[in-house]
């Protein structure tokens, strides 16, 4: 929409023009089912194979190691449940961090109901997992460790390589939720040494509702959705052809442009952090200052509540988010903020700004100009605030 300034790129990026163009032929003209042996089916199959190569190349995987799914949540559920079921004879213990996305935490919880054991390891006040804590949490029964690559709220980037060393030395499967990193920063599955990595197109200027899972060759996992030969038998169901093609294009563009994108958003991120800290008092930046996604700014504004900040920003056509889309509706403070020790009232007054390639310095300046007034206005109404 005209005039809208998007500081909510973690929730959705506007698909790039080339992404949309690449999808168009698959709306009408090329309509076969890729599982069909005939010409129309084969044409579609080739398009999917190409997308698989584009996505594989973005994360330095082989095409056969990529399984397309419908969402980051599906990729996470697939991994947790699929590894648990396939490796039940080896053990029944899973390790996750306290700040994982709900799709990891809830999948773990549903496994607990089936008799599995789950250990949640804490993070420090910056949102960092201590590799030593992973080491301590591992038992003889551990079959999977799942630690996210970067947190979706506070932007902290975890020491995945270090953790992988510990986990792989014990011969345990290692998953990392890369939904906020793939396409945003360079990701190399070989260097990271992970067995599974989740990603989703909507975070890198691709369509919504298409995602994938990297499965290292040989890693044991059961499918979540069975009953079809698609994706090499690892995920049944007629493919979201248009979406997959769009994700392929988005992946190729991300491969080419990632360095440029980082440079662009990081400058804006640092400008925004600096402006807010200069212009508004009683604020705190959540997450690690250096080990941080280049597009992430998350502040707690004391004495006021997040939704009312968002509404007033919305009146200025500025989009942002109160932590995570989930918590903004559930009226509950974010589990991530509470895991890093933020008090509930400050958690409730926290706003997540995620930058993208369509943001400009002017956008940041506008936000830095509007935000202090909005905060003042709400503080004037707040029973908690005394000037």
């Amino acid at each position, binding site marked *: 929409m005209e005039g809208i300034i998007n500081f909510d790129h973690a929730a959705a990026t506007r698909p790039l023009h080339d992404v949309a163009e690449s999808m168009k032929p698959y709306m009408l003209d090329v309509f076969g089912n890729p599982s069909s042996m005939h010409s129309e089916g084969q044409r579609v199959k080739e398009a999917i194979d190409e997308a698989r190569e584009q996505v594989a190349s973005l994360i330095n995987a082989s095409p056969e190691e990529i399984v397309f799914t419908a969402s980051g949540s599906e990729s996470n559920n697939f991994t947790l449940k699929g590894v648990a079921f396939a490796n039940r004879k080896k053990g029944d213990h899973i390790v996750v961090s306290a700040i994982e996305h709900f799709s990891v935490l809830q999948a773990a919880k549903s496994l607990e109901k089936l008799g599995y054991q789950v250990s949640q390891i804490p993070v420090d006040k910056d949102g960092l997992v201590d590799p030593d804590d992973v080491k301590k949490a591992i038992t003889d029964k551990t079959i999977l460790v799942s630690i996210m690559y970067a947190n979706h709220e506070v932007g902290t980037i975890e020491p995945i390589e270090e953790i992988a060393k510990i986990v792989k030395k014990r011969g345990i499967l290692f998953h990392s939720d890369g939904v906020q990193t793939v396409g945003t920063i360079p990701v190399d599955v070989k260097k990271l040494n992970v067995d599974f990595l989740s990603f989703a197109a909507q975070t890198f200027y691709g369509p919504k509702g298409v995602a994938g899972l990297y499965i290292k060759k040989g890693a044991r996992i059961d499918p979540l959705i069975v009953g079809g030969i698609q994706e090499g038998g690892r995920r049944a169901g007629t493919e979201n052809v248009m979406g997959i093609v769009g994700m392929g294009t988005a992946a190729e563009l991300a491969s080419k442009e990632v360095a440029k994108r980082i440079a662009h958003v990081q400058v804006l991120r640092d400008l925004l952090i600096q402006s807010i800290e200069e212009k508004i008092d009683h604020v705190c930046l959540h997450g690690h200052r250096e080990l941080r996604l280049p597009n992430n700014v998350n502040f707690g504004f004391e004495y006021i509540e997040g939704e009312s900040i968002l509404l007033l920003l919305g*009146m200025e056509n500025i989009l942002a988010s109160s932590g995570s889309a989930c918590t903004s*509706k559930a009226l509950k*403070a974010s589990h991530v903020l509470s895991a890093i020790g933020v008090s*509930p009232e400050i958690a409730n007054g926290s706003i997540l700004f995620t930058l993208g390639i369509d943001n400009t310095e002017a956008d940041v300046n506008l936000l830095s100009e509007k935000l202090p007034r909005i905060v003042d206005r709400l503080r004037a*109404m*707040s*029973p908690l605030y005394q000037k």
Partner: protein
Amino acid sequence: MDSPYSETVMDHFMNPRNVGEIKDADGVGTIGNPACGDIMQMFIKVENDVIVDAKFKTFGCGAAIASSSMATELIKGKSINEVLKVTNKAVTKALGGLPKVKRHCSVLAEQALQSALNDYYKKEGIPSPVKMKSEEEILAE
């Protein structure tokens, strides 16, 4: 811009009526806690059994601010007997409705009002006819 809120809610959120404190209030009620995301504080000034002034301060979402604003509007100029009948439903209705997940904000407004009235009766030394109700009780009515 599209919003989950009605026009009236947005109006009362953007231009809240009666924000502030009454220094020599006859009754003050505070409800909620910041961990749950909302605190509402209501101040009333009573003369000859009539609410001659009402003000609020609120930490909370758009619906909470609008509900507080509307509640103060609804009670100003009314007799205490009338005000005793002002419920969360009246606030919601006057606001042109609230999203389901936000109904508890109108409940807070009712509770803040009841709490302010209680405080008034207490200060006056009159046994209070107000029975404080829980959110569940109010929503069940």
